[in-house]
C-alpha cells in the first residue's frame, strides 16, 4: 500500500471491482490502486494465491487486471483515466463450455 505525500490536485475518478476510487491524473493504474489502498489485484490461476503489483515497470506481470472489459492489462503501463472500469482477475478465466448435445459425446 502506498501513501500520498501531497493531496490530490487534479483527481481522476475510476472504479475497482465496482468500488469508486480517486487518483491523481497522470498516475499509472498500478500506483493509483496501491495509493487507494488496494494491495490485491488478482489471484493466480494455479494456486489461487493473492498477488499485487511488484515491479511497477512492466517486467513482472503481477499487476494484470481487466480494464474496460479487456483482460490481462499491465496496470503499471497504463494511465488511470476517468470512468475507467477496473476488475480484479480471480484465477484462470474459464472458456465457455460447448452445449451438451445429449448424444453423450465425451470428446
Amino acid at each position, binding site marked *: 500500500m502506498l501513501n500520498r505525500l501531497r493531496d490530490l490536485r487534479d483527481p481522476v475518478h475510476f472504479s475497482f471491482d465496482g468500488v469508486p476510487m480517486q487518483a491523481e491524473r*497522470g*498516475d499509472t493504474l498500478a*500506483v493509483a490502486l*496501491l495509493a487507494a489502498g488496494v494491495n490485491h489485484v488478482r489471484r493466480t490461476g494455479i494456486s489461487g494465491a493473492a498477488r499485487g503489483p*511488484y*515491479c511497477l*515497470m512492466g*517486467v513482472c506481470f503481477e499487476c494484470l487486471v481487466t480494464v474496460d472489459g479487456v483482460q490481462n492489462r499491465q496496470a503499471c*503501463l497504463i494511465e488511470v483515466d476517468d470512468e475507467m472500469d477496473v476488475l480484479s482477475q480471480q484465477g484462470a478465466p474459464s472458456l465457455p463450455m460447448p452445449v451438451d448435445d445429449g448424444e453423450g459425446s465425451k470428446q
Partner: protein
Amino acid sequence: MSHRHVSTADSLLAFYDLLIIGAGPAGMAAAIEATRAGARVVILDENPRPGGQIYREITRNVPAHRPYLGPDYWKGKALAEAFTGTNADYVPGATVWSMESQGEGVEKGNCVVGISLGGVARMIEASAVILATGAIERPMPIPGWTLPGVLTAGAAQIALKSAGVVPQGPIVLAGCGPLLYLLATQLLDAGVSNMTLLDTSDPNRRLAALRHLPGFLVSPYLLKGLTLLLKAKRSIHIVSGIRSLAIVGKEDVEGVRFTTARGHETVSANSVLLHQGVIPAINLASAAGCALKWNEVQRTFQPASDEVGCTSARGIYVAGDGAGIGGALAAEVSGRIAAITALSNIGTVAQHAVVGKLKRLRHERRRYLRGRAFLDVLYAPQQEFLTPSDPQTIVCRCEEITAGQVRDAIALGPPGPNQLKTFIRCGMGPCQGRLCATTVTEIMAGERGTNPSEIGTYRLRSPVKPVRLAELARLPHRPSALMAVTGRDPVDHHTTNKETHHD
C-alpha cells in the same frame, strides 16, 4: 521544433532510418544524435512519458514538488528537453513484441519490428535498430516474496518519482547494492520514518573489492556514495550480516524473519522493498538472435557487443544498461556512440567523419565507468539469495514453481534451462522468464558444480511480450506469410480459384 507524438499504429511510417527501443538516457541520447545527423528516427517506449526508470516523469516533475529526488535525478531534465526538441517520431505506450534482424527472408535487407500500439499491431521496418531497453532488477527469490505488500526497491523509487507516493510503514528494505541506500535516504528526505534496512552484502567481499578501490576513488559516484552511507547510518535502523531472509504473512506482508550470526529475529512490516542489484533486460536482444555472453563480475548474461554497440546480429545495436550495467551517465554516452555507429554503417554519415568523435565519446564513457568494478564486487549477491536453499521458495512467480521442483527436475538430467522449462513450465508464464531465468541458471550451475556461462539461459522467441491473437490476425497477410500457412503460392491460388469459377 518538437518531436512528433505518435499515438496510433496507423500514423507510424512504414520505414525509418533508425528505430530506437526505449526512451531512457541511452535511447533519448541516441535519438538526439541521430536526428542531428539528419536521419529519420522513431523511438518506441512502453511508458507514458520519456525518461526511462532513472529519469521517470522528468518532463513533468519540478524540484519544488519533489525535493527529495536529489541532484542526479534532475540531471535528466536537460537531456529530456533536448530530446523533446528533436524531430524524432516519439511513440509512448508502445509494446515491441518481435524483431527480425537483416538477413534471409527479410525484404530489402531491413530490420523488421513488430509493435502493438493502442490495441493495434503493426510491422515496421528500419535500416538499423538500437536496443536501449535498460535494466531490470535481479530477481531475489526468498520465502514470501510473492506476497502483496512486497515491492522491488526500484518499484518504490518509481512510485516516488512518478507520483510522490511512499510505502506504508513500517517499511523493511532488504538486500544489497547502492540503490537500496539511495532509496532509503530519498524516503528519509520525503519524511518517512520507521524504516529498517537489512543489508545482505557479504562482509567477506570487502577485501576482494579493495583491489578495485583506486578506480572508485576517482569515480564521479564516490562523494555521493559516501554521503548516502553516512546519512543512512545516522538515521535508519540498519542490520548488517544478514544470512537468510523470509517474508512472513498469510495474504499480506506481516513481517520479515532474518538470520545473522546472533541468531533469528523477526521485525514487523507493512511494506517490504527488495533489491539485489540490477541486470540488463535482454529478452528482446535474445529473441532477435543477438549472441549473449556471461559477465562474471556482474553475474549476468548480456548481449555480446563491441565498444561501439554492434551486436552479432546485422543492423542491431545495443546501448545503455541493456548492454551491460554502467549507470545513467555512461548510458547517455553509449546511446550517442551507438547512433553514430549505426548511421555510419548505413551510410547516413561518412565513416571517416566520425572517427575523432567516437574516440572522444569512448574516452568520456570510460570516465563514467570508473569505480563500477568496486561496486560490482562489493555488492555481489550472496549465494543464498541467488540460489535459495529452502525448497519451498518460489522461483518462477508466474507458474509458481519452487526451488525444490527446479532441483528435482535438474536431477532428471535435462541438458540446460530450455529442456528444464519444458519439463516443469518454469519460465513459461507471461513474464517469459524475466523473473526466474537468472535463478534457474544459478541453481543449475550450483547443482552441477559448474559456471553459469556453461549452463546458458532460456532461448527466447517472439512474441517477447504477450500480444492479442486478434491483433496478429489483423496484420496484413504478406505473400510469404500466406505461402507459409497454405503451402501454395497465393498468386497461383488466386488464378486456380478463378479458373474453377469459369468452369
